[in-house]
């Protein structure tokens, strides 16, 4: 019987099993190491700070730094087979479709990270909080809630009162961008993909800044009415979150498409 050439859940399961057989030691070491790092870094920071004032927002700040840094590094390690010619041959000739390999990579590098890392951080930050509270009772707010932290960021720090749908979309897409950009970079660059991706986006952002500077300051282009401190953005009034949300969604979709074609057209 001819197998389905486009997509098969059975082959996704086979890819998962294969990945677990090959990487089980690495996964175990990484989870233990990361849990320890969360535990001790939190303890270190709490003991160095005015512990009585430590609250959920402090936990959330540490969580955000961890999430962004680890997320970028982890998704930047996507498509590990592409780092060498020998492993690329092995990977490309493995009997699974492009869609299966692509979806498996998204699942393991982005989806799993988004689901597992907050859970891991939540478990070990609360565990650490409870243990430290026993020894240092001044640590009053030792319970961490990611949900509460997210609401605080959206409601208080953005100072918009009610949560705007566009702000939600912008936040979600912004977070996804931080994971998708290194993912795409890893599909494109063979050696040092993370560094090269960061360099590429730095060039793009600097280019955008220089272009805007010339348009607004040097050429004094009509139509640009930059407000103080917002010289790099069009003056779009209250529509800024919606415009940025749409822009970053489109960018993310483009990056995902590029990664797909890089995998599909990959040669050795």
């Amino acid at each position, binding site marked *: 019987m*001819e*197998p*389905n*050439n486009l997509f*098969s859940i059975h*082959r996704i399961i*086979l890819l998962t*099993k*294969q990945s677990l*057989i*090959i990487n089980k*030691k690495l996964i175990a070491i990484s989870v233990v190491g990361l849990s320890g790092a969360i535990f001790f870094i939190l303890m270190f920071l709490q003991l160095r700070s005015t512990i009585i004032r430590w609250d959920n927002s402090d936990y959330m700040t540490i969580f955000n730094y961890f999430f962004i840094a680890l997320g970028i590094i982890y998704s930047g390690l996507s498509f590990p087979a592409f780092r*060498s*010619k*020998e*492993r690329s*041959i*092995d990977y*490309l*000739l*493995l*009997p*699974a*479709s*492009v869609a299966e390999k692509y979806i498996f990579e998204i699942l393991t590098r982005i989806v799993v990270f988004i689901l597992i890392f907050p859970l891991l951080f939540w478990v070990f930050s609360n565990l650490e909080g409870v243990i430290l509270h026993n020894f240092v009772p001044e640590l009053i707010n030792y319970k961490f809630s990611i949900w509460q932290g997210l609401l605080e960021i959206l409601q208080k720090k953005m100072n918009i009162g009610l949560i705007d749908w566009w702000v939600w979309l912008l936040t979600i897409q912004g977070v996804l961008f931080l994971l998708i950009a290194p993912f795409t970079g890893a599909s494109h660059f063979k050696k040092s993909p993370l560094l090269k991706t960061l360099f590429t986006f730095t060039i793009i952002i600097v280019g955008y800044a220089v272009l805007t500077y010339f348009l607004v300051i040097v050429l004094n282009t009509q139509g640009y009415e930059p407000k103080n401190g917002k010289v790099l953005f069009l003056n779009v009034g209250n529509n800024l979150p919606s415009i940025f949300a749409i822009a970053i969604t489109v960018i993310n979709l483009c990056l995902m498409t590029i990664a797909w074609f890089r995998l599909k*057209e990959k*040669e*050795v």
Partner: protein
Amino acid sequence: MIQIKDLNFAYPRQQTLFSNLSMHLEAGSITGLLGKNGAGKTSLLKVITGLLHPKSGVISVLDYNPKKRDVSMLNNIFLVPEDFSFPEISINNYVKAYSPFYPRFDLQLLHRILSDFDLQANSMLQRLSYGQKKKFLIVFALATRCKLLVLDEPTNGLDIPSKSLFRKILAGSLDENQLVIISTHQVKDVENLIDQILILDSGKVIFQHTIQDISQKVSFISGTSDDLNGAIYSEAIPRGYRLMIPNSHSETEVDIELLFNAITKGKKIE
């Protein structure tokens, strides 16, 4: 099984490697792909397996376009590359991780050949020597029972007993629905194994004949300078010459090295 017509291929920013290359291979054969260094043997194998994409031309492997790397095609192709890498797992775990992707995988055959090659299933792949790793990859390739097996320099790194064992095992593990392509410089290693010779030169297939066809047309003998007249091609050896002469009497064993040198120097066997 493999049909290539007017294939053109070049690496980026390099001269054309294959120019209007055409060839046709059917199942039930072990074909030796021979060529000088840089003739493009490995590149041709990569084009056939879909690892490189041609600029133009028609290529069909098992009725699929290899560029698409369809699962139905990948199920039936196994490439043993010259250079390879293994994950840090045991042979057993490697088999568990990779064999389910090959529907006709034969576990019994795998264990039989592993034992023939004196490999232990619980050995860690990273701790094996290059030759042992290569033997394992050949064993795994044969156990997949893929319709197309592509072996790039399979005997590189094998010791002398393993080379003869390789010939014996390969010949004894195939069926008539399979095609094996062996690209090699070590022609002595594949003598008495291959039943078809394909020579690649200057971006084209310049020679494709079965061993039977060759031995019907030419003979390979040792002789003296008196025998040089009438020889299609000759090479000096200690105490005489190796000669390729038109076959007039009995069939002789094909001297692949001599044949290769003759063909690449423009000699014809017709």
